[in-house]
């Protein structure tokens, strides 16, 4: 299958205090797909997402989003990106609607149906209570609402399923499928939990020690590995460990 790429990372390196956290990382996310970035805690998932959003500057390497270099056209790219990095942060004393209004204003967008988006993520009857009274799951949903409300072309969600129950996970999967199909979005999600990634993505990228060691269609793993993703994942991760000594 051949897809145009939404995100293309090549030779990416990021060091913090002389420590290489991302090393020679290559990654390609095709348009219109749900790409799951899978890796243990500390593998570098959040760091890669922050580099994609221009929140961190790469030490070396290139990042292209929709064929534009993030260092050159950052603001142009950011208009088309929705993101949620780690736990979402809100203006606690304001309501969900006010938080979304502020977000839209920064994004430079008007006339968007806020209630409809809240409905999509399952927060329809929340009224005007301040976000400080929200539960963890509600915050996560509001974070996703904020990431999609301005109709981005690329959605970047860092561990979006943290704090959701099994029903919530299923709703997210359905939501992602709908966003990809109806709104032509490309979705990039990360997780350290195999079963979550398996349930929501089409393509999986496995990150080990700051480098993506494998990018593969979920369907082909299911075909070749009878025991499923878990078996496959361990073979890759252990292999990766051996290579790096």
């Amino acid at each position, binding site marked *: 299958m051949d897809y145009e790429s939404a995100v293309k990372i090549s030779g990416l390196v990021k060091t913090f205090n002389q420590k290489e956290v991302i090393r020679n990382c290559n990654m390609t996310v095709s348009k219109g797909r749900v790409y799951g970035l899978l890796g243990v805690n500390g593998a570098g998932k959040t760091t890669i997402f922050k580099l994609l959003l221009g929140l961190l500057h790469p030490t070396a390497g290139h990042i292209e989003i929709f064929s534009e270099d993030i260092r050159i056209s950052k603001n142009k790219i950011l208009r088309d990106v929705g*993101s949620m*990095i780690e736990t*979402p*942060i809100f*203006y606690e004393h304001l309501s969900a609607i006010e938080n979304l209004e*502020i977000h839209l*204003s920064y994004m430079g967008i008007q006339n968007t149906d806020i209630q409809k988006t809240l409905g999509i993520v399952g927060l329809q009857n929340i009224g005007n209570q301040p976000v400080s009274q929200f539960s963890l799951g509600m915050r996560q949903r509001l974070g996703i609402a904020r990431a999609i409300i301005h109709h981005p072309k690329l959605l970047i969600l860092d561990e979006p399923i943290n704090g959701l129950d099994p029903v919530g996970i299923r709703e997210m999967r359905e939501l992602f499928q709908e966003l990809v199909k109806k709104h032509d979005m490309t979705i990039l999600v990360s997780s350290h939990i195999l079963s979550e990634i398996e349930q929501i993505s089409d393509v999986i990228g496995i990150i080990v020690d700051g480098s993506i060691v494998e990018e593969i269609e979920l369907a082909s793993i299911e075909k070749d590995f009878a025991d499923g993703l878990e078996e496959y994942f361990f073979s890759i991760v252990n292999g990766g460990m051996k290579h790096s000594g």
Partner: protein
Amino acid sequence: MVNLLKLELKKTNIRTYIISASIIGICMLGIIYLFAYAPKIEPKDPDMKMFAGYENIIPLFNTICMFAFSLLSSVMFSKIVIEEYAGKRTTLLFSYPVSRRKVFLAKIAVVSLFVVTAMITSCISIFTIFGISESISPVVDGNITFEIINRAAKTTFYMSISAVSVGIISMAIGFIKKSIPTTIISSVLLCSLLSNIVAGSISADSAIIIFTIILVLISVLVINIMTRKINCMEV
């Protein structure tokens, strides 16, 4: 830019600051009467000379006012600037397609305008109340001349600008450590230092002008440095 200013207002709970400014105003009203009555309490004490006559009371009162509003401005800068750039908030703020410099300047503008307006409004109200009560039953010896009013107006204006500058400078110090307590402590220290200088040179009109200009220049410099820092900040 207007949109960014409106957004800052929307994000902050501006009512809290209006209430704080009003409370400061009420305390300051008490202070001006305290100064006015001071010489009556101990008429023989030579130290009380500093409270003799309007031309002494008013600059002294303005200095205390500047102290109070400097603290208010440093608290506001802590909440609106330091808190946003120190915590996880920055991740959200920096993922918007807006110039970081403009957002930062919008924050400075909101706090500065608020503090200057609040201080000038408070002082005008206090002087009006005090002026009326003095014309009915005077406490202070001497007449309220046009020159005294004119000087009070000028001093209030310059001191309100100084109050903002002190806030900006302490914000810059607090920004190095990304800490709210540092910001507020810096502002207390700066104020104590400055009040002493001002109180020492109270009779000279030009002193307050020079002193304001120096503070403004330092503020512009630190805003420049901070803008550059924020522009290449990684979060």
